């Protein structure tokens, strides 16, 4: 009986090892590293990257209290502006798929995001309808590529002017 149990244990262990070995992720590396995509717009965030990684919630919390309670709606530190720059080009969102800007790091760090229970994860309008104002004018070649079927380049130039 003992021999049979030992045999069973060996078989199970081997099976488990074989299953683990077949996995693509190396176990020693831990959870998959976050995918950090460069912002679609702009070169530099409102604060140095290290500061933003550590303290973005301090800036956001302070800004939100000022915006909601006092009506101070400055663009710097506004969540809407984060989304305007960081929304993914494929999903058009910061939190729709697992590789999108906010979700990617937050799932790695196992920190739940509550922002998007209430806030939209997408910039104003769809990517194709993104207003071609001065702030987004440098982004218009990408928009033109996305909206190729509907709007001609001349029309886009006209709107930009």
């Amino acid at each position, binding site marked *: 009986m003992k021999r049979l149990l030992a045999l069973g244990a060996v078989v199970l262990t081997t099976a488990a090892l074989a299953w683990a070995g077949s996995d693509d992720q190396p176990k020693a590396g831990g959870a998959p590293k976050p995918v950090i995509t460069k912002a679609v717009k702009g070169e530099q965030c409102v604060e140095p990257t290290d500061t933003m990684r550590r303290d973005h919630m301090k800036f956001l919390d302070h800004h*939100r*209290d*000022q915006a*909601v*309670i*006092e*009506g*101070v*709606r*400055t*663009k710097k530190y506004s969540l*809407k502006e984060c*989304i305007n720059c960081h929304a993914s080009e494929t999903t058009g*969102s910061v*939190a*729709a798929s697992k590789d999108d800007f906010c979700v990617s790091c937050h799932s790695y760090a196992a920190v739940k995001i509550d922002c*998007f*229970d*209430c*806030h*939209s*994860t*997408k*910039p*104003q309008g769809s990517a194709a309808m993104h207003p071609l104002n001065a702030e987004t004018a440098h982004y218009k070649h990408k928009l033109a590529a996305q909206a190729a079927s509907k709007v001609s380049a001349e029309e886009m130039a006209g709107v930009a002017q």
Partner: protein
Amino acid sequence: MSELNQMSNQAPASPERRRFVGVATAAAGLAIAPGVMLVEVAHGRPEDQAASSAVRWGMLVDATKCATGCNDCVTACSTENGWTPVAESAHPKQAPQWIRKLELQDPLTQMETNLPMMCQHCAEPPCVDVCPTGASFKRADGIVLVNRHTCIGCRYCMMACPYKARSLVHESLNDTQKPDVPRGIGCVESCTLCVQKVDRGDGNTACAEACTAAGHDALLFGDMNDPESEISKRLRELPTKQVRADLNLNLGVRYHGI
């Protein structure tokens, strides 16, 4: 007791002082240089400037012009603020209603009255009095809002409101919100007088714009503290009423023809 007396003595003077401060600010704004404004008055508040109590946003509803069967203000509100209209809701009894149309009939004379009903933006809001977390608040410019970051969804404010103006979001909205109007499950909400538009400097609400576009002109939005504003002029001329004036809440929404 002497303190109390002092306070009551000062109270009547405050509107005058406020008006003076308002005038002084406007003058300072104009004085810098021709064509250069330091302070943009009322409608175009700079984005880094807090809402000011020199302004009190309000609305005048002319029920004599409000058309039977017209729902344009409600539709415009739902489009601007991203809430699902009751007719399209899977749970109509739970559906949010930031603004709703009422049709009233006098049982004796059969006279019908139409009017939109929404948050009345009281100067002394009962919803703010009862809120246990301070989430329900009145902004300096008179707009009564819910801070969804502190709202726990207890719904005391819904019970306290004499106008049935508030509703709770019962279900997850699954990222259907407008970027300008965050709203979500477990929070109470109501008319914000289109605070996002006001802060942008549009100087009008979606419902009033829609009413004007439909040619009814029954809704007029403006600054009730500015004696020169259109709404103040009309309020001086027309006989208006506050709904449940007996509650002494000093409403920001006034009705003519009810």
